Structure formats: structure tokens, C-alpha cells
């Protein structure tokens, strides 16, 4: 009896928390899909509309922002996968002087991300002539201590026999890396990739500092410009724009929930 009461209480608490967690999002969805008159007025018979999305899409160059974000994310995640693979392999399977010291130095970047050093990094990017370019947004993130760390962990697990076999077959260093290590670390790549895609899709501060025009602004910065410009307080349109910009990640998450959750788990377990 007491067991059943406590389990009912637990279920209640869990769902109350769940509801609280969903409420802001549900509220936003309600507002975005109904005419402005119903924004704060709940009525089951309220007509559904896509009007708000159309107006948001027309009011700001969101298509361009989508393109910019996609290009930035592709550039960063692509470069990270290649560069971190190479560096992680060196740390995992080579012995050279100063290796451990160098690895410790690399790990400093886990704590100190580029936006904390924005003042000096902005100067560097300006000196490279990359202010207000997509490359400028991506540059400080192209190498990642986090990626090096994760992949090194994965590569250390690979049995050395496999590598020796590949070497006997005539593979060089890069061949071994490509044929043996990379395939065996595939789940780690997936996990790391998903985490990084969602991180950089959502990144705001550094792009805000470095970009200055429609041609370079990612979605997050575009959305903040849109919401704080002269849209007044037409919440229906702003909410529609908000959902639109988070849409791809949200839909991706709902479709591949398991992979997402497992990826975040895998990337977090050290």
C-alpha cells in the first residue's frame, strides 16, 4: 500500500516536472500556429495558420541565415573531424618528447573557449582579414581539445594487433589511421559530430562579435537582430521565427532521439 502510494507520488512529481519543462515550448508552438488574436487567448476552436511563419520568413533574410549557419557548421565540424583525428592519433600511438606536456596544454582549451578570449581573438581575426566572413566565425573553433581528447580515448582502445596486420599488408601511417582506427571509432565520430553540430548551430556570442552583415550572420544572430528590431511586440511572428530557426535541430532530435541522447552520453563519459 505504502509502496503504491509512493510510486503514484513519484509518477505525479515526474509528470509535473515534465509538464513544467514542456510548457514554455508548447506555449510558443500555440502562439506560432495561431493568429495573433489568439496569442494569449486559449481556445480549442482557434483556427490554425501558417501566416506567422510566412510573415517572419518575408520580414528578414532567413534563407540566407540558414545558408550561413549550414556553411559555418559544415566547415567547423568537417575541419574538426579531420584535424582532431590526426592529432588524437599522434597522442594515442606515437611516443615523442614532450608528448604528455603538450597534451596537458591542449586540454587547457577545454575550459577556455574562444569567446572568453574574444578581445584578443577579434584582433587576430581582424589581422587575418577575416572579420565579417564565414571563415572568421569558424576559425577559432576549427581545432578542438574536446575532439582530440575523445578520439584519443577511442584510439587507445584499438588493439595493436589490428594495426600491425594492416602495416604488414602495406599500409602507411595514414592508411592505418584511415582503414583501422577511423572505422573502429565510428560511434565516437557520430556522438562527437551530433554534439558539435548542435553546439555550433546554437552558438551566439562569437558570431555576434565577428559578423556585421546579412551575408555572414548565422541564424542565432539573425534571430536576435530580427527580434530586437522594429517588429514591435508581435509575438506571434517572433515566436514563429524562433521555432523556425530551431526547427531543423528540433525535428532532427525528435526523429533520432535515441542517437542524440546516446551521443550526448557517450561524449560526456570520460
Amino acid at each position: 500500500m505504502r509502496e503504491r502510494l509512493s510510486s503514484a507520488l513519484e509518477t505525479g512529481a515526474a509528470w509535473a516536472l515534465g509538464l513544467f519543462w514542456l510548457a514554455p515550448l508548447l506555449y510558443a508552438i500555440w502562439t506560432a500556429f495561431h493568429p495573433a488574436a489568439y496569442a494569449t487567448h486559449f481556445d480549442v476552436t482557434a483556427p490554425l495558420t501558417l501566416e506567422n511563419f510566412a510573415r517572419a520568413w518575408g520580414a528578414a533574410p532567413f534563407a540566407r541565415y540558414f545558408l550561413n549557419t549550414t556553411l559555418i557548421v559544415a566547415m567547423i565540424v568537417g575541419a574538426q573531424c579531420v584535424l582532431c583525428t590526426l592529432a588524437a592519433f599522434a597522442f594515442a600511438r606515437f611516443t615523442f618528447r614532450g608528448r604528455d606536456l603538450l597534451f596537458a596544454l591542449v586540454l587547457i582549451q577545454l575550459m577556455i573557449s574562444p569567446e572568453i578570449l574574444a578581445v584578443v581573438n577579434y584582433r587576430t581575426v581582424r589581422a587575418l582579414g577575416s572579420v565579417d566572413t564565414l571563415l572568421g566565425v569558424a576559425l577559432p573553433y576549427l581545432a578542438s581539445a574536446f575532439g582530440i581528447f575523445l578520439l584519443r580515448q577511442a584510439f587507445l582502445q584499438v588493439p595493436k594487433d589490428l594495426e600491425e596486420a594492416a602495416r604488414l599488408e602495406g599500409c602507411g601511417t595514414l592508411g592505418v589511421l584511415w582503414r583501422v582506427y577511423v572505422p573502429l571509432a565510428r560511434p565516437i565520430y557520430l556522438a562527437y559530430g551530433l554534439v558539435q553540430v548542435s553546439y555550433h548551430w546554437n552558438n551566439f556570442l562569437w558570431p555576434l562579435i565577428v559578423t556585421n552583415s546579412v551575408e555572414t550572420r548565422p541564424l542565432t544572430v539573425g534571430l536576435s537582430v530580427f527580434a530586437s528590431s522594429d517588429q514591435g511586440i508581435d509575438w506571434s511572428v517572433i515566436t514563429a521565427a524562433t521555432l523556425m530557426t530551431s526547427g531543423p535541430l528540433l525535428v532532427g532530435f525528435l526523429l533520432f532521439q535515441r542517437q542524440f541522447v546516446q551521443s550526448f552520453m557517450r561524449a560526456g563519459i570520460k
Partner: protein
Amino acid sequence: MRRPAHEEERAGKSVRLARLLPRRTSVEAWLLLLPSVVLLATFAHVPIVATLIDSFYSTPRRNRPSHFVGLDNYQDMIADPIFWKALTNNLIYALGTIPASIAIALAMALFVNSRLPGRALLRMAYFTPTVLPMIAVANIWLFFYTPGYGLLDQIAALFGGHTTNWLGSQQTALGAIMVVTVWKEAGFFMIFYLAALQQIPPDLREAAAIEGASRFAFFRRVTWPLLMPVTLFILVNAVINAFRTIDHIFMMTGGGPDNATNVLLFHIYEVGFKFWDQGAATALTIVLLAILGLLALAQFVIAGRKVHYQ
């Protein structure tokens, strides 16, 4: 004297093997490392040193180039009440959001890990804020908080409450921002607890049940100690985030009203990129770096002790 043929063959083979197998030179290693090391040094290590040096120099102005000023930037900073306000706010923000996020994350993980009805849906509900951009989250909550109009005030009106300007009042603005942070972060931390909970062997629970231990006793004596390493990991992440995540402050309050929601990194942004005062901004950055450095040191010491304990 001639060696037997097969011996010669074996010698040749081992030479070939030696040539094939451990051909790992440090030159190769450095080539592999080069691109990452150059980029990390350019955007992390060199800037740390450059920030420190710059903090002893004045801000270059049109008719007056940068010159050495010693500790002037730091003295100005200490004399500036906004710096102290931002620092205090940041500490309140950290002390308020971190324990709340961790406690809620643990509760979520325990809920989702038990045999509740609809736990897949619950897990989704808890985790969804994690995949949303902070800017989008801020927009959604901005609407939520709108005085007289947002859901919060409508609920208050339902119970006869009056309208509250959550983000516009000195007393409530920082708290309102903190709620958003917890909402966004707890689901993310839940994942790590969930992963750890799933690794606790089920026979421990069976053994405890045979001993007649209550669920609470089991949690306190078995689950919680086993979760210690994850808690430490989450704690470190939460502290870093508390000093780094400021996107929603841009969107919701812009540091106001009257600096009530100004925190260190936001202050650095304002000084560095609105007032373009490089000297002051680098001095502030050094404070932030010092805090993060101390944190890293603390983690190192605690993690070191943990290893001895095991």
C-alpha cells in the same frame, strides 16, 4: 663462413618487419599534430598571454598609441562599482543555478531510470531544451515573462494576482534569468546521471532488497556514492557554464535593469566591443581566467584525492 640459407632468409624477414612495423618517428607525430597545435595556440594559448600583457597597457586611441600603464587598468577595475556588481551577480548566478540544475537533473534521471509510465516521453520533455539555441529559449521565455500578457502573469491573474514585470524589476530580473538557465541546463546534466545510473549493477539493488534496506537508504548508501564521479564532472561543467553562458542575457535584459543582470563575460563584451576599451576588457578577462584557473586547480586536487580513495 656461410650462414645456412634459412637463417639468412629469417634475418631478411625480420629486417623487413622492423622496417614495416615501428616506423613511428617523432617527425611524423609532429606533422600530424601541426594543424591542431597551430590553431589551438593561435586562438587559446597565445591569446591568454597576450591578454595578460595587454592588461598592463592602455587602450590605443587615435592620437595616442597604447603605452605601458602598470596596474592602472586593474585599479580602475577595482574602483568601478559595475565590476563588483557583475562579479557579485555572477557568483549569485552560479550559486543559484548550479545546485538547482544538479538536483533537478538527478531527480529527472531517477524518474526516467525507474519504471514510470511514459518515461520515454518524459525523457524527451526533459531533454528538449538542450537542443534549442539559447537565443530561441530566451525568446520563448521573454514571451512567457511579458508583463500582463505572458503565461506567467495570466496564471497569476487566474489566482487574483497582479501583473509583475519579472525582467524589468531589480529584485526579480536575475532570478528570472536563473530560472531560464536551470530550465535549459538540467536536461543536459540528466543525461550524464542517466548514463551513470545505467551502469550500476542491478544485483546491488537485489542485495539491498534482501537486507531490507529502504529505497532512500539504498540511494543514500549506494547510489549517491557511486554517482560521485559524475557529479564532479557535472559540477565542473556547470561552473564553466555559469561563467560562459550569457546568450539569454543579451536577449532578455541586456544586463539591465541598472546592471541587475550584468555578469562578468557580459561586462567584458560591453567594455570590449561597445566601448572598445581594450585595456579594461583585458583586465576583466584576466579576472575571469583566474576564476576558471582556480577551478581547474580545485578539480585537479579533488580528482586526485578521489583516485587515492579508490
